Each structure stands twice: as C-alpha cells, then as structure tokens.
C-alpha cells in the first residue's frame, strides 16, 4: 500500500514582473545579477510591492484545480539563513488565521482517482546558487539573484498517489492545465519542480527534496519505494525523515538533521496588507479563464462527432486547439481534426517547432477542401504541409510550385502503370495469384508519381490491367 504525496513549485513565467518588484519574472535572458533591484535584493530600507496579476493568476490556478478560494489572503515570513535568500527570509503563505493562502481543498482527476489538492500558495523563488571548484572542501559558492523574487505557486497534494506512474500522469495533466491557463510555461527549464513524500504499508512518511526534474522525480520515487520495501521486508523500522535526491548516484540520502533544528518563526508579513478578493472579483476571474481541456474535449466530441482520442490530443494542446478552432466549419471539422492528428503532429511535435511553424488555419481548411475535391491526394497534402510549415505560402502557390496536383487522368495514370508493370514483373505475377498483394504495385505508382496519383483510380486501373 504505497502512498505518495507531492509538493510542486511552478513559476509564473507568463507574468511580466516578479512577485514583489518590477524586475522581469522570467529571468532567463539576463546575465547573472542583471535582473535585480533594491527590493528583490532586500537592500536596507526596501519594501515589497505585491503584483496584482500574480494574485489573479494564482487564484485562477486554484479555481482550475477546483479549490476553495478565500475572501482575504495574507502573506507570512519564513525565516531562515541561506545565501540564495537576500533577506534571509522568504515571503510565503500559511493557513494560520483561518484560510489565508490563495486556495485549498481542491482535486484533480487522474484516470479513475481523485487526487486531493491540500493547498495552493503564492510565494517568492529564491536566487540560484552555483558551486564552483572541484572537491567539497574547496567549493566556492556563487550566487545569482536574478531569480530571487520570481513568482511561484506551490501546490501541495494529499498522499493520494499509489504509484510513480500515476504521479507522471498527474504531472502531465497539471502541466497542460497550467499552460492552458496561460499563466506558466512548464516546459521551460526549471520552471516546474516537484518534491515528494513516500510511505508504504502505513509506515512513516519520508520527504524527498532536491529533485531536479520530473524525470528525476519518477526515479527518486521508485528508488525510495524500493528502499522502504527492502527495509520493511527485513523488519527494520523506516525512519520518518527528510532525504535528498543525489542525482549523481541516483539514490536518496538522509539529510543532515539540520531540518529538525530549524525554527522558521512564521509571522505575518506586515509590509503587505491582507488582500481582499471579493466574490464578484473571483466570479470575473472564473469567467475569464480559458476553457478547460476537458470541457473542450467534450465539446469537440459532442458537437463535431470527433473520435475521443483525437479530441483529447487537440484539446490538450493550445497550439492545436487554436489551429482547429479557427479552421473548422460544420462540414469539415472531422477532417481538419484528423489532418492535425495524423499529419501536422508528425512534424510539429515540439514547442519550438510550434513557434516557428507558418501553418495557419486557412492552410488547413484549404487543404481539406482540395483533398475533398480531389485536387490533391492525401499524400501530396502531407508534402504540401511540410513546405507550408517552412514558407507559409498559400496553398495554391505551393501546389503550383511543387507540382502537387493530383493526377486523376486515367491515360496519364495508365502510362505510369505500364512502366511499373514492366519494371516489376515478379510483383505483377504475385498480384495475379494473390490479389491482396496488389497494394505493392499501387505503392510503386504512388512512388513514381510522387504521391500525386489518385490512389483510388490507380487501384482501379491496376486491377483492370491485371485482369486483362
């Protein structure tokens, strides 16, 4: 009986500015320590100024995760010393005087399970530490504060996961959801981190920290479960503790119990007043939220009679759903959807390619129209798409320049068929004896015509020639 809980940190990189100052939220393009100001450096006399949109984004996330959201939120100080903390305290949230973080008591459906979201809080990211030097004894600590103050949303789940695989599915759903909301870019390096906790057979809960990526998370969870199981089998007590993931050795290691000595002395951050988020504001936020993935999917299936798997793929990705929604008409919705999921996805499979692609919804509907009016074959459409992706030229131009128009003329096709029959004598004999192998010949004709021959006609003509 394995139980896994997660603590996920997601940067709100879609915001313009940091949580408490006007430096850039997404620090990645800057030279070290060139995205700082007196506030995020915690210079004496500086004061934090809360980012309105950060609160809105965090509240939207809470609502998207079906959380309850309170009327007022407050911020707290978590006091501890570390080089990446300019003030040696972190401004974060806590539920001490009632519920004062942006949301809580929500859930996410993962396959047939409901994973409970315990709470969601808004807080600032610390800076980044880079270690220089070879041995542990000579390592110098170098700090870059560009990231200090970047807005973070922390999402804490109950220990409802039963397996690392379930965790992976959840994280994919969560990433899609956050991206769909337009508040985060989970694909950016370091933008989304997760720590976990593991217990087995109702035993002690072990926290695992310092996990670099989702990939590492799965590994760490597997390792930890195995470690606990082997202890359990030998009747050795599993200590309740914090361990950290050692990426080099691929194991979890007990952290020095500095954690236990820690006393964060939490108290209200008095430089930031409590923020009232009344019901009408929350209602407006909810209305303005982009449609959720699951509701999009439902809409595609019901309205356009698109196969659920196809609908799922398109709904889950903003790029495809945008392409689809601007291309479809009552008649061709299904075709557009299939074109996207069978062809477009084939060559536009990364965020970068999505950004660079010049394919528009107009291209897609033009192509579908052309296919349906038999101006080009499905194969040629694929070739055309690749070109359009790069050049963005309109369909007519591309068809013309690349000579992709379908060859439907029987006499033209027959000429090619004769050539193939000459070249592939054995295949012709095979086809006469075993008609199911005729597709080989069709394929050869398609090859020779670079996919332009009307495949239905070609098959027809080959069959009749075979019967001659």
């Amino acid at each position, binding site marked *: 009986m394995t139980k896994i809980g997660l603590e996920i940190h997601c940067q709100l990189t879609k915001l313009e500015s940091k949580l408490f100052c006007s430096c850039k939220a997404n620090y990645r393009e800057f030279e070290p320590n060139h995205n700082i100001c007196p506030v995020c450096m915690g210079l004496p006399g500086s004061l934090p100024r809360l980012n309105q949109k950060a609160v809105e984004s965090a509240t939207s996330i809470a609502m998207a995760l079906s959380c309850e959201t309170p009327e007022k939120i407050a911020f707290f100080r978590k006091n501890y010393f570390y080089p990446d903390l300019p003030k040696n305290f972190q401004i974060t949230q806590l539920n001490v005087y009632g519920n004062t973080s942006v949301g809580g008591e929500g859930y996410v459906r993962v396959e047939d399970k409901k994973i409970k979201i315990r709470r969601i809080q808004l807080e600032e990211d610390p800076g980044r530490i880079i270690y220089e030097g070879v041995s542990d004894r000579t390592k110098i600590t170098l700090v870059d504060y560009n990231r200090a103050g970047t807005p973070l949303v922390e999402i804490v789940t109950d220990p409802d996961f039963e397996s690392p695989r379930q965790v992976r599915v959840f994280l994919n759903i969560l990433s899609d959801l956050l991206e769909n909301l337009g508040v985060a870019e989970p694909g950016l390096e370091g933008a989304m981190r997760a720590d976990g906790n593991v217990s087995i057979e109702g035993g002690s809960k072990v926290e695992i920290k310092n996990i670099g990526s989702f990939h590492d998370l799965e590994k760490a969870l597997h390792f930890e479960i195995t470690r606990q199981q082997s202890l359990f089998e030998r009747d050795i007590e599993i200590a309740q503790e914090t361990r950290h993931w050692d990426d080099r050795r691929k194991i979890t290691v007990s952290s020095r119990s500095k954690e236990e000595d820690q006393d964060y002395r939490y*108290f209200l951050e008095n430089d930031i007043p409590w923020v009232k988020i009344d019901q009408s504001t929350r209602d407006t936020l909810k209305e303005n939220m982009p449609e959720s993935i699951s509701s999009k999917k439902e809409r595609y299936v019901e309205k356009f009679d698109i196969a659920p798997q196809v609908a799922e793929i398109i709904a889950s990705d903003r790029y495809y759903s945008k392409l689809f929604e601007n291309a479809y008409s009552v008649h061709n919705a299904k075709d557009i959807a299939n074109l996207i999921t069978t062809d477009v996805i084939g060559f536009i499979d990364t965020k970068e390619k999505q950004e660079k692609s010049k394919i528009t919804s107009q291209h897609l509907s033009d192509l579908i129209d052309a296919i349906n009016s038999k101006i080009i074959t499905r194969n040629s459409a694929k070739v055309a798409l690749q070109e359009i992706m790069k050049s963005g030229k309109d369909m007519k131009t591309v068809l013309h320049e690349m000579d992709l128009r379908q060859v439907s003329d029987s006499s033209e096709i027959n000429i090619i068929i004769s050539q193939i029959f000459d070249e592939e004598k054995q295949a012709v004999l095979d086809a006469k004896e075993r008609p199911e192998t005729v597709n080989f010949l069709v394929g050869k004709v398609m090859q020779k015509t670079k996919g332009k021959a009307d495949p239905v006609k070609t098959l027809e003509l080959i069959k009749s020639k075979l019967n001659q």
Partner: protein
Amino acid sequence: MNLNTSILKYIEDIKSGSFTVEEFTATTLQRIKDVEGDVHAYLSLNDSAINDAKLIDQKISSGGKVGQCYGFPISIKDNICITGTKTTCASKILENFVSPYTSTVVNRLQNEDAIIIGKTNLDEFAMGLTTEFSAFGPTKNPWNLDYVPGGSSGGSAASVAANECLASLGSDTGGSVRNPASFCSVVGLKPTYGLISRYGLISYANSIEQIGPMTKTVKDSAFLLNIIAGQDANDDTTIDNNNVNYLENIEDEIEGKKIGIIKEMTASDGLSSEVLTATKDAIRDFESLGALCEEVTLPTIPYTVAAYYTITSTEAGSNLARYDNIRYGYELESDGYEYNSYISKSRTKFGPEVTRRIILGGFVPSAGHAGKYFLKALKVKSKLISETNKAFEKFDYLISPTSPVQPFQFGEKIDDPVTLMLLDYNTVTANLTGKPAISVPYRVINGLPIGIQIMANSLEEKSLLQSAYALESKTNLPEVPL
C-alpha cells in the same frame, strides 16, 4: 541672522531678502563646526550643501520656480537612505554602506528644495531610548551636556535644539521621535501608521514604525507633514490622506473639545515630581483654552511595554537577518570560514543592545514559546486598539506627559534592562495602535525639558496639530543655553 528661528519665519525672511539661502546655510555649517565637538548630533555632513544653496539662490533671483522649502536646512536620521551617502544606522555592520537609492521622504523634500545638511546619530538600528547605544558615540543633550538627549532619534532632536538645522526627520517605533523631542524641548510628531512612506527607512519593527518630523514649532511640523505625507507607490502600507492641508486652520480654537487624561500614564507614583507638576499645569492650560478635561482609564496599558518589546524584537530579529555581510556590509574575507561561521563572525559587529534584541526576537516567536509571548503580545495589541477606539468615541484627544521623567545623566539607566524598557511606558501605546501622537515642549525645570504628549484618533493629524498649537501658545520657553 538668527539661527534660532522657525521654518516659516525663515521662508518669510528669504522671500523678503533679509538673507540668502547660501548665507543661512553657511552660518548653519559654522554653527555645526562650533558645537558639534560637544553635541555630536551628526554622523556625516552633506559636502554639497553650499552648492545646493547657491542653486536655490539662483532660482530665486532669476524668478524661476522654487520649491516650497526655499532651501531651509534639515537633518535626516541616519537610518533613512539617500543615494550616494552613507546610511549606517549608527552600526559598525553598516559603517560603509552607501545606499544606491533615495527614500521617498527625502525625495519629496529635495523636490521642494529643502537642503539636507547631514545625517544624524541614533541608537544603533533605532533600538534604544538614550542614543547611548550608538556604535559611534552618544549624542549629548544641548540643554545640559552631561545628560542624554533621549532616543533613538537623539541626534535629530539635538541638531534641532542646538540650532544646527531648522528641522529633522526622525523615526518613531516606540517613542523614538517623541521621547527625544521631549528631552530636547522640540516638537516631535509620530503620525498615523501608513501616513508617511517607509520606503528607504531601514526597518526595525515594520508593523508599527513611522518617520516623524522634529521641529521648533507646531506650525513647522504641519508644514513638513504637508510635504512628506501621502500615499506612495513604493510602500504598500501607505494610505490615502486625501491631500489634507495640515497648516490650514491650525490656529482654530479647541474650545469645547474633550480631553482624556490617561490615568495609567499620569499616576503620581510613576512620574517624577517635576513631571507631575508640569502635567497638572498643562491640564489647567488646556482648561483655560476651553477644553473639557477628564480622567480616562485604559486598563491594557500596563501590559503594553511587554507586548511592545515582544513584537518589536520578533520583527527586528527578522528585519536584521539580512545583515550577513555577503551582499553589503564591511570588509571581511570569507577564506577560512564556512557559511555559518562567517555570518556569526560578521554579526559580532552588532552592538550589545541590538544583539540582545535579536536573541529575544528568536526566542519569543519560536515554536515552543510563541503561544506564551508573541501571540499574546499580538492580542494585547488588538485589545489596546479596541480600548483606544472606544476612548476616542468619547474624547477628541488623550494626553499624558511624554516621558515619566526628565532627561537623566549618561550611564544612569542603561544597566537595568527593565528600567530602560519602562521609559517607553507612555509612548508605545500610540505605536501599537497606529494612532498619531505629538510631543509638545512644555516646560524647562532645572535646565531640563519636559514635553506633553497629545494623542488623537487615526488620521486626525489636522485636529491633533490644532490642539498642539493651542498648548504651545500657552508656553514660554527659554532658549537653549548652548
């Protein structure tokens, strides 16, 4: 030209051509040279003061637009940041810290052509009541150099009292503007929490502290308030004051106003006999002005000092955590140290009082002790707020002597921590409740000043200043002997 003048009189004189800004500035700088050896109010002086003065004179003579301040000299407590100048908080740990930005209040003053003459001495990080805890030596009371000027804004108060400038900005966390104002016979105002921006004020206890003007007259205080008060985008805790003009109608009478005499702050066994007598006389003066005085009890007051020190040490422990000597501070090579030992070594530069407050501030909110100390202190704060709110339903003002005692000699009080803490007895209420309070210089007995404190309800500075002006009109104070 007389340096013992008020801001408003100075401006009149500049406008009428009695003297130039440069002349007044030069005379002020000379005065500083003459008395600083004795007083030690300043930690640093502004090298370009004369140049600033010349520029303003040029503006005046060419008929250009001149700011409201007409170049009057003002000193700034050295826990308030000004670009390019050292801001030390009177601490060795910041002795070379040069701020890369300017506080809002100084910005507003500079925009109105005030001349910043220099930065004044304080108890280290504003923690103290006598300025004896400054790492750079104490400031002396200009009324008697063997006596303390009060604290923590002792340098600010002394600089005004000694005619080394016409006004100063101090900071008040538990009485740090009003207490030295009382000890040095100047006007000291702690405004409503949130009225004046704290951007650039180096934090000690950020939930209750405020910058406050220290001046020779009540009208000058109103004048300064007009310039520095008001909402600031750089400080989320500032509130909108609707652009009130504090100087307008300041001479309005207080006839018929109801004044509550705070029983717990005026008990005869808590005050020295001189202070008690002065208080009684002040009450009579108020009555002669037509106000109705009556005793009022605020039963939470005996607990306020404990609550105050619990809350402020918690916040100080957190606000001073950033001083780890890594990003700014003083020169100390990190070779041979590791992180924790380096920080501990660096922080030995804190003085004894700051060190003790930090330890307290780690103790009282810690997991095992917060319930007994910190959380209780917060509740005392809430209780006090309700109590004073209730009192202000009946009364327009609440009064008491600012300090239970007159100024005392150096070394007299700093050895017993509890005695020291209790000097704040009459002043912390205004900080804990966030309500405005002013100390008006009332009397000098045996050469030592006594101030009377008036409190008003939140955002009632305009009314408060009227009552202060009225009381001031009844006083007849000697000139400082220095």
